[in-house]
């Protein structure tokens, strides 16, 4: 049987239109750039005090591009929507069939947006995100992948590791031999596994590590950056020197070193994990103590809970000694995790240190000092909350950076098992097919990685823009 087409039954009508619109868009964008060199302002005030807007050619070209982009988006949506109106894969097309597979994601996305927009007035900075088109677009892309990771088992059509004979390097849309009516939507890779299912499973791998590793890096950076910026002096000099040392060391070489079996035997990754993973516990204990030391009952409760849960998780994650077996991390993953935290923490440290140095000169910090507050209260409750804007933005950007880093690690085959579906490893395994012009096994994870990082960057831009307003 022939593979199904990308665009299904609407293809013959929409494909030429799509091509025409794309060409028109290219022309209008070019015209817009060229015309903007020659024209002046659009609005002129009249003698009677009213404004008259005359559209310059450049603005007309800009309006045309806007409509063309909308048209292209509408066609893309149609390609997806047609999948829901037919059960026949050939009529659905690859786009349509994929859109149907992603149905839990669409439901979750629509619910998230509907609720958020409905209550955006009460949601602070998160609510304000829905005033910015850029931020909304970024948030939508990020949430698409988050929901994909959550619902991966429902979405995937095959087990990401199962091989079907005869499907080696199959083109996208090929019917699976021997299993009637099932399709490798995005084709098969060199080991005859389903690329679509591997992409979906890879999202789960990537999204499980990147945000958590970034969060740990932030904990370490904040816990060290606050005192360095606040106290300054020799403490700051020494910490900054070590931060610069880590930053100056070639990252890839560092990774190679950390995952080399000989180095692992020495236990260095475990020691690093032991050092890095204790920071969240320290951070939270100091946070509660500085705030509630005037009320020992409350303080003991909060610090106690933190210590109990924190040390339990710590013993499991860092040393794999959790008696109950809830917290554990396989050695490979631990390596990757620790390396990522280790190279990200110094940058966060420098950002936090700079923000602290700026904020410690404020009068409310002096007011806290003159009423006898301890330094940790001032750092954690007076300074840190007011540094949150830039930190949230950096957190989003850094998740993207970490995602790329994980991709790079996977690409070099560092620290992850060879058959792991994570995007970096998949790109690497698809790399060998590029010379014989089989693109899809490498291209699909590459585009996924790109769209997730793009979404995170757009989200960060939106947050930055909105946090500056008020």
């Amino acid at each position, binding site marked *: 049987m022939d593979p199904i087409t990308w665009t299904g039954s609407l293809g013959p009508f929409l494909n030429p239109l799509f091509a025409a619109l794309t060409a028109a868009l290219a022309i209008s964008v070019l015209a817009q750039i060229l015309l903007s060199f020659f024209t*002046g*302002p659009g609005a*002129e*005030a*009249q*003698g009677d*005090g*009213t*404004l008259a807007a005359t559209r310059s050619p450049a603005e007309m070209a800009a309006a045309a591009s806007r409509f063309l982009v909308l048209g292209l988006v509408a066609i893309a949506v149609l390609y997806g929507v047609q999948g829901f109106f037919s059960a026949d894969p050939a009529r659905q097309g690859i786009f349509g069939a994929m859109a149907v597979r992603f149905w839990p994601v669409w439901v979750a996305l629509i619910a998230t947006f509907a609720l958020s927009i409905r209550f955006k007035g009460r949601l602070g900075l998160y609510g304000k995100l829905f*005033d910015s088109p850029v931020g909304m677009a970024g948030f939508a892309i990020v949430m698409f992948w988050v929901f994909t990771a959550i619902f991966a088992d429902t979405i995937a059509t095959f087990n990401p590791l199962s091989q079907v004979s005869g499907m080696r390097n199959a083109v996208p849309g090929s019917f699976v031999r021997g299993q009637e009516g099932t399709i490798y939507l995005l084709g098969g890779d060199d080991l005859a596994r389903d690329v679509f299912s591997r992409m979906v499973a890879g999202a789960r791998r990537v999204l499980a590590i990147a945000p958590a590793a970034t969060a740990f890096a932030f904990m370490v950076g904040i816990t060290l950056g606050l005192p360095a910026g606040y106290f300054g002096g020799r403490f700051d000099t020494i910490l900054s020197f070590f931060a610069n040392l880590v930053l100056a060391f070639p990252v890839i070489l560092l990774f190679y070193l950390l995952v080399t079996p000989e180095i692992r035997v020495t236990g260095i990754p475990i020691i690093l994990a032991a050092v890095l993973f204790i920071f969240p516990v320290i951070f939270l204990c100091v946070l509660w103590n500085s705030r509630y030391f*005037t*009320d020992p009952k409350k303080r003991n409760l909060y610090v106690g809970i933190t210590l109990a849960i924190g040390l339990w998780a710590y013993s499991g994650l860092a040393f794999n000694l959790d008696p109950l077996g809830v917290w554990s991390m396989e050695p490979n993953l631990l390596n990757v995790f620790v390396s990522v935290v280790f190279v990200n923490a110094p940058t966060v440290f420098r950002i936090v240190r700079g923000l602290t140095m700026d904020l410690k000169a*404020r*009068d*409310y910090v*002096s*007011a806290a*000092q*003159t*009423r*006898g*507050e*301890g330094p940790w209260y001032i750092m954690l*409750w*007076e300074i840190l*909350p*007011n540094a*949150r804007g830039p930190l949230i933005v950096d957190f989003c950007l850094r998740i993207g950076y970490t995602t790329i880093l994980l991709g790079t690690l996977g690409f070099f085959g560092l620290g992850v098992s060879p058959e792991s579906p994570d995007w970096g490893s998949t790109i690497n395994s698809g790399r060998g097919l590029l010379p014989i012009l089989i693109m899809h096994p490498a291209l699909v994870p590459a585009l996924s990685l790109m769209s997730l990082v793009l979404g995170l960057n757009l989200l960060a831009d939106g947050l930055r823009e909105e946090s500056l307003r*008020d």
Partner: protein
Amino acid sequence: MTAPAWDPSQPLLEIENLSISFFTRLREIPAVMDFSCTVMAGEAMGLVGESGCGKSTVALAVMRDLGKTGRIVGGRIRFKGRDLVTMGDAELRGIRGAEIAMIYQEPMASLNPGMKVGAQLAEVPMIHQGMARDAAMTLARQIVADVKLPDPDRILRSYPHQLSGGQQQRIVIAMALMAKPALLILDEPTTALDVTVEAGIVDLVRELGEKYGTSMLFISHNLGLVLEVCDRLCVMYSGEAVETGPVSEVFAKMRHPYTQALFRSIPLPGADKTSRPLVAIPGNFPLPHERPPGCNFGPRCGYFETGRCDAAEVPMALVPGGDRHGTRCVKWAEIDWAAPPAAAKQGEKTPVGDVVLRMEDLRKYYRVSGGAFGGGAEKVVKANETLSFEAREGETLAIVGESGCGKSTFAKVLMGLETATSGKIVLYNQDIQDIPIEKRGVDTVSSVQMVFQNPFDTLNPSMTVGRQIIRALEIFGEGRSDEERRNRMLELLDLVKLPRQFAERMPRQLSGGQKQRVGIARAFAGGAKVVVADEPVSALDVSVQAAVTDLLMDIQRKNKTTLLFISHDLSIVRYLSDRVMVMYLGHVVELGTTDQVFAPPYHPYTEALLSAVPVADITVEKKRIRLEGDIPSALNPPPGCPFQTRCRWKPQVAGGLCETEMPPVRDLAPGHHIKCHLPAEALNSMEPVIQIAAE
């Protein structure tokens, strides 16, 4: 692009019914409505008003520099007969800088830090007139000499950061003058400077206006400055001009209730906290999108009449017999303008009790290392030298001085953020000079508290108002339970006259005055006995200043608090303090009761300071004493008397004693100390700086 001929007898700048709005995503915010004013050639026009009244917006509209969101929605701005509103970008570029120049508040932000001063100045005529570089540099040198900067050649070769704030502002003025503009717009040009430096700049601006015949649009919130600089003024309130006319006429015969209320809320000579207290304007400035119908000032006005004042937009009415004197009030003809203000509540004088705080020979030195790697000679900054005074219960002691005089260092040492180098601080018979704040007991810490200067900085922006006050209560160990502390917090809000609902608000939802009240409530959370108020009202608008000052006085009366009031504004100091301490470069140069300090004999520095403070009263005659140069750096103080480099009395001291020897502390009268070498005859020959002319 030749400009049409312009007849100098016609107005240079004519603004007619100008309306400006800012467009945000939520709504259109009208910033200026129906604003008209005329500036003739050679005239200085003052724009006065509180922050947010639209005075800077008018100036930016004249420059057509309203940004992306601002738009002129109606009216006309004619400059030399040409309409600026409809002018194209190219033509505007020819006018900006060349014919209309603008001077901003912050001099460092107006200068390019990477370019030498000379190159920046020469650029102006090179761009606008195509002047050759050599000729432009010669012109720059001449103008720098014109703005009275010493050693013009050296100044031209230096970078902006090598100059002091006053010198930088002079360079900005010089730059504005390089193209010989017809109109100079000054937007609060002296707000960032010290008083004695400000006085020099104001003199310079006035002289240059006369010399070059430049017209000026002078924007300020300070009525005293406007009186010194301008011929005419325009009082603005909430986006509208409410009164306009010649300065002398408006000051003597104001015809708008807002102008009158403004004058009653500023401390003029003669006002007194017990017998003639200030009258604060009730209520708050309306937000631009919440303006009342009819007269904008209506809700805060004592003459308000329902049905007339809130019926329709009030037009500008001309006052007959005046020189283009207009007022935007429907009732101006009916109000008895000569009536004295309704008897404001008169407070009782706080009885002064025992000595609470005593300083003996307090010194604070800082060591500054010479180079980055510890090399170079270590320098010592003497921030405080032999500070001795005592403060009694219920007393207000004002500490007066300009930046760098050591008043903030003194506050830090008193609060325990720094420890003293030598000397003693005795608080309730307890030595605290060597005890840093971490080691002080809760009682000591809570009894010495501070109110800060900048209302926008004094509260943590991410904590509710109530939470911040409760935190202070927790730290001071007040109250046994959360419930008790919450009630105490609400009582504190009552004390500072804020509604109890404010407990749940975030600081950004409060106005400057309200934030300052929260700051005061927080300082009094632990029943403070000594409160250091570091310029608590200088960043507030005049109408709010009076209310906050009153509040401080009220609390002082109630709690018998000792108030150490740090300020550079001698008008407010004269109004509320019992005793005054004048500081210069770390030294107390004069200390005495308010009457003693404000009457001769003065310390020469006090005399200059008194003369520098602008007074918004045309019946007051002021002697003009201008200090040369800037305050010397504390890193490198002059030998002998710290003030000798700028003192005009120095020649009267025999044998150059001022340059070699530190003057001793002399008692002129009981409780009146002065640090000066001047012989008794010279001191006695001093004349009062401020005299109220016979009416």
